[in-house]
């Protein structure tokens, strides 16, 4: 593993057409890499929301980088619905594979365990099941054989080709501290390639003491790490800095139209010096 590398080099490791697991705004978003993908421009990405998506997905979708989205939701949270996502669905420009949070968690855990599927309670009778023919319903093999039927959903493993996220810190060996954002550990386990930006690279090993090790993804699962200060701007990084609400409001406003979104891209993405 090459440490440190740069956001651009991480972007270069995400091929067009890749399936890309991304976290919601509250978790860890590697936005410097996302902007580099847009500048390339990346094409035909398959986004996987873990379990939902926010700002970064709307940006990638609006910029035409995305072919499909598998997610429990796409939303800008307090800033309202995700305008480029809604427009792309309406225009038929992306394929949407609607899911629900626990199905995505179960699919990723199946991949983490090298399993073809996991079972899951609930969900039966939702139209999600009608539109996802790859989900199966079986009769629970463990039900009392003299009792009533007990239908249960099985969902297939979700194996992202690439997991991409931002975290507070890594060490020189490539161990990455994610604290309580444990879904990032799950995708690092489940994905073939895991690319991470961090606020800083610290000198001491994060595995040396259990206090830090408890929140650390071992380097074993990490393909490359790039230090990027404020790398989650503008959505913020839990415990480190807050979302830039003014910027996110500006985004929501501009992105409500195609032309406004183009102005946003021009000003904040395509001119990298202006990105912050």
């Amino acid at each position, binding site marked *: 593993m090459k440490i440190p590398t740069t956001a651009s080099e991480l972007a270069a490791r995400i091929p067009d057409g890749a399936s890309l697991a991304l976290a919601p705004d509250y978790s860890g978003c590697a936005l410097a890499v996302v902007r580099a993908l847009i500048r390339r421009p990346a094409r035909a990405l398959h986004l996987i929301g873990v*379990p*939902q998506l926010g700002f970064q997905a709307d940006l990638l979708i609006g910029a035409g980088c995305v072919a499909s989205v598998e997610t*429990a*939701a796409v*939303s800008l*949270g307090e800033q309202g619905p995700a305008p480029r996502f809604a427009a792309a669905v309406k225009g038929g420009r992306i394929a949407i594979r609607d899911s*629900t949070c626990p199905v995505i968690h179960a699919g990723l855990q199946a991949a983490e365990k090298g399993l073809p599927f996991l079972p899951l309670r609930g*969900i039966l009778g939702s139209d999600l099941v009608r539109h996802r023919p790859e989900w199966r319903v079986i009769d629970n093999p463990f039900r009392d054989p003299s009792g009533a039927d*007990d239908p*249960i959903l099985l969902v297939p493993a979700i194996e992202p080709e690439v997991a991409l996220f931002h975290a507070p810190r890594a060490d020189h060996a490539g161990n990455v501290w994610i604290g309580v954002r444990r879904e990032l550990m799950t995708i690092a386990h489940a994905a073939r390639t895991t690319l991470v930006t961090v606020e800083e690279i610290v000198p001491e090993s994060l595995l040396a003491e259990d206090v830090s090790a408890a929140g650390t993804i071992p380097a074993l699962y990490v393909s490359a790490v790039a230090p990027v200060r404020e790398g989650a701007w503008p959505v913020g990084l839990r415990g480190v800095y807050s979302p830039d609400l003014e910027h996110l409001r500006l985004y929501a406003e501009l992105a409500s139209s195609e032309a406004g979104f183009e102005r946003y891209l021009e000003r904040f993405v395509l001119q990298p010096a202006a990105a912050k």
Partner: protein
Amino acid sequence: MDWRKEELLIDVLACMLEGLGHVAVGAASPIPGAAALLARERSGGQLRVSVLGSERHNPFTDGSRELFDCAAQGRIDAFFLGGGQIDGAANINLVGLGGYPRSRVRWPGSFGSAYLYFLVPRVILFREEHSRRVLVQRVEFVSAPGTSPPEVYRPGGAYALVTGRASFRFDRGRARFLLQSVHPGETVASILEHTGFEFDLPGDVAETPAPTPATLGLIRGPVGAAIAETYPGFAARVLGISAG
């Protein structure tokens, strides 16, 4: 004492949490969040409240799957769900309108609704807008069904529907709502006018009681201070409280 509509709704929702052990509230839900915190104040701290958008009031340490596992373990007694559309059988639509998958109007998506609706015993549907646009005969997309056939494992389900105009209880056996009370300023006629689905009417429909001064004191005091951390905009706009 003057009160705002949001304060009434916080009070109504909080009353539905009385005596419970643990309520979880989703992100971007300031009124349910405030209701949960009000119910906790009233319980003397006995009610455990997990606010998902919060760094301070969210106890989970096993990643975003923990909420769902916790619900499946039977450790969450109540949860709130909304809906772009809600129908008379308590089906909810969080996906969109005008065809699927290429929806004319596309909403964020189903989030965890299709799971939590099955596993949390007391799911309270909350939508401030009460109109024929929202409360429809039949949702266009079932993100999560209101009821299930008897063979489907479902310890949870809808308990009530609270809107800006009224409160309904849900009868799971009959898959129908029963009007429980109309908020001040509304009448049975106005509810019928603005509701797109059929529902049951009791012999005598009460008016939702206004929040008492004691309740308003809690909402504007400790509840507001706690909610300001997660929903600073809401706390400032509605409760006149700025984050500490």
